């Protein structure tokens, strides 16, 4: 096998430009790689902020009758934590990776619409700033603001003028509306890029799975974020123009807000998890030294998930009382979505089976993802049974379930992706020892927090309560759950430390540190502005394998 480093272009050493000029370059950039990095840095900042909010929530609940924060502040904390994590942490992370990697993986020089790309990023960025500006401006511009406190799904009538005085809810609505436009713009861009910018030879059946999964994700964003936008417009009409969409006293309906929110909200879960699947589908083969098992089945399962995910939303509403027929439909559709998801899990396992597994940090995170996501899926199937949800709806069991999906599944896959592609983005390696320490701390913290969070839920502890009575058997579990937070926080600190270590001490990564097979590893690390000196031509799903093994290329077998 030949070393791919031999082909790396020499990087000319130039005198550094003044910092103002460099910052100006970053603000005005339309380069997909820079925008991708901006998305990721932006998400990291909000990850820390929303993590601090989670810590406040858990400190308040560490023991019964605690008075660390007031009930009002507690409501603001869980609202801001949820909203920030979904819209301003995970989505920007995923868009950042999609932006950075898709053009490189499909052999293109940029996204289909570079200026739309920059526009979408700044819409998302200002949406996040708008949400946090409520701390200053929510009660008027005299500086005595407060944050939104209506919960991240903002059920009516909490959001009506009567129950939400001041402007905190307006900031919430506008922040989601503005960032929603950004998300839709990016999604259109991803679809157009994947369909129209592929390099010669890269048919849809030869695309990396990463591009396929992000294509389906972008389609879901187009179809799922738009209903949220519509619902936010209705809420604005109600709040500013005196409309009656969600005003039950004028014949409006509070339940229809639930429907509209969850028509967005459930596909959103798959918007978040499909890119996580995409990371895992790229990382597991490389560290198992085997091609992905069942490529076409993976694509089919992804598309199936995309379709089914549009018809499961009302399983968030079993406790509302929708009637037996509606409940039955959503029970069955929710159970059905476990099938293509299960297919994926078996495919990843089969990829690892008999492989020569290298337990590098990205792979550790992906293996943890596999088992944690499986467990999260199993509690999901439990909750898909309507009578079960009648007992445990709105309890900490539900909170534990969806944090198992989002932290145990998506965040673990994201960290894996971070370590896997950091050498490509920065050109420098991270510290494997610090990476493994990060994994260990976060793994312990995750399981302390979210394994034990199921139990107070089963014992009847409702979510969103700011304190609780002693002697209900919840005390010790809440204590353990909060202790886990410190391990997770320590893990995040090690992670940030590792980024700094990599920046100052990391050794050069070279163009292909993992001996991988997709096109992004064929160019320099970090890639030049134009990505590829000449547009590549591919004949199989693993073009770099073909290049490294000219005697035994993949296209003989596909």
């Amino acid at each position, binding site marked *: 096998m030949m070393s791919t480093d031999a082909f*790396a272009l020499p990087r000319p050493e130039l005198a550094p430009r003044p910092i103002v000029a460099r910052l100006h370059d970053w603000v005005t950039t339309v380069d997909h790689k820079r925008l991708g990095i901006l998305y990721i840095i932006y998400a990291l900042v909000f990850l820390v902020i929303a993590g601090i909010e989670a810590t406040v929530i858990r400190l308040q609940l560490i023991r019964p009758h605690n008075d660390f924060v007031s009930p009002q502040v507690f409501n603001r904390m869980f609202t801001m934590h949820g909203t920030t994590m979904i819209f301003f942490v995970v989505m920007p992370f995923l868009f950042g990776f999609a932006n950075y990697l898709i053009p490189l993986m499909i052999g293109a020089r940029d996204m289909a619409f570079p200026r739309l790309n920059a526009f979408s990023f700044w819409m998302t960025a200002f949406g996040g700033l708008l949400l946090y500006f409520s701390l200053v401006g929510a009660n008027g511009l005299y500086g005595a603001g407060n944050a939104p406190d209506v919960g991240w799904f903002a059920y009516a009538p909490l959001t009506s003028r009567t129950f939400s005085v001041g402007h905190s809810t307006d900031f919430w609505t506008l922040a989601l509306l503005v960032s929603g436009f950004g998300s839709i713009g990016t999604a259109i861009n991803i679809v157009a890029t994947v369909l129209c910018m592929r390099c010669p030879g890269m048919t849809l059946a030869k695309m990396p799975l990463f591009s396929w999964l992000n294509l389906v994700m972008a389609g879901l964003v187009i179809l799922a974020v738009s*209903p949220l936008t519509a619902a936010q417009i209705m809420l604005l009409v109600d709040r500013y123009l005196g409309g009656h969409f969600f005003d039950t006293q004028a014949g409006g309906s509070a339940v229809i807000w639930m429907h509209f929110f969850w028509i967005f909200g459930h596909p959103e879960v798959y918007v978040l998890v499909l890119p996580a699947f995409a990371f895992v589908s790229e990382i597991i083969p490389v560290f198992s030294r085997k091609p992905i098992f069942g490529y076409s089945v993976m694509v089919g399962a992804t598309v199936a998930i995309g379709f089914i995910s549009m018809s499961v939303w009302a399983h968030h509403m079993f406790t509302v009382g929708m009637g037996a027929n509606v409940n039955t439909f959503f029970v069955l559709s929710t159970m059905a979505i476990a099938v293509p998801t299960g297919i994926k899990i078996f495919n990843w396992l089969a990829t690892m089976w008999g492989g020569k597994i290298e337990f590098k940090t990205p792979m550790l995170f992906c293996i943890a993802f596999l088992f944690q996501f499986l467990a999260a899926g199993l509690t999901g199937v439990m909750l898909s049974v309507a009578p079960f949800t009648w007992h445990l709806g709105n309890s900490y069991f539900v909170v534990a379930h969806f944090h198992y999906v989002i932290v145990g599944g998506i965040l673990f896959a994201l960290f894996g992706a971070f370590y896997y592609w950091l050498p490509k983005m920065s050109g420098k390696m991270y510290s494997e020892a610090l990476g493994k320490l990060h994994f260990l701390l976060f793994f312990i913290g995750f399981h302390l927090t979210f394994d034990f969070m199921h139990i107070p839920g089963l014992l009847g502890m409702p979510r969103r309560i700011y304190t609780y009575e002693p002697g209900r058997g919840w005390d010790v579990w809440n204590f353990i759950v909060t202790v886990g937070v410190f391990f997770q926080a320590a893990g995040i600190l090690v992670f940030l430390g590792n980024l700094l270590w990599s920046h100052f001490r990391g050794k050069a990564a070279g163009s292909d540190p993992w001996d991988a097979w997709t096109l992004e590893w064929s160019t320099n690390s970090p890639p030049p502005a134009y990505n590829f000196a000449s547009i590549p031509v591919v004949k199989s799903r693993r073009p770099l394998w073909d290049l490294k093994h000219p005697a035994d290329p993949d296209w003989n077998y596909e």
Partner: protein
Amino acid sequence: MNATSMTVAEGRIEWDRPARGRIGMFGLIAAEAAIFTIFVVAYLFYVGRSLTGPMPKDVLSVPVFYTICLLSSSLTIHLAAKSLRRGSVLSFGILWLATIALGAAFLYGTATEWHRLIYKEGLTISTNLFGTTYYSLVGLHGFHVVAGLVSLSIVMALTLLGSVGSEHAERVDVLSLYWHFVDAVWIVVFTVVYVIGR
């Protein structure tokens, strides 16, 4: 490695991909269709649920003429794009202007209807549930007509300045897709508001 070494395939490959402008516009249309779907569902869900008047059957009159205006503008924009593809900039300009005039006539129709409803019938967006859903749905569509007219007018101005030629036929086609979408949405809104909802 240098990307020139990436040319692993021998010979030339037949390579054909969809135009990105067209795909981008289809994406936008899908997103807009989802937004309209939610508003239409809300409208249908709330038909007959207003607790106070005025009710749709008392105040709404069917805007037949202005509907014909808007729908026929789909024909003129199609013919305009076809003329440009043939290279006839003059007939393109005339048909394009006709499209703008028909769209503006439709907006005028909406304006007079709203004026009558607000000042004569006393129906505003906050009067009752019908007012809320009616002004939101028709207003959302009207907003899209305005956005379409602004885009069409920019092309018209460029045509008058002489910088539109047959090489722009593809782009004009993409813009006309949006206009067709706005027209198609009106068929749905018309059915929902003036046929089912009345």
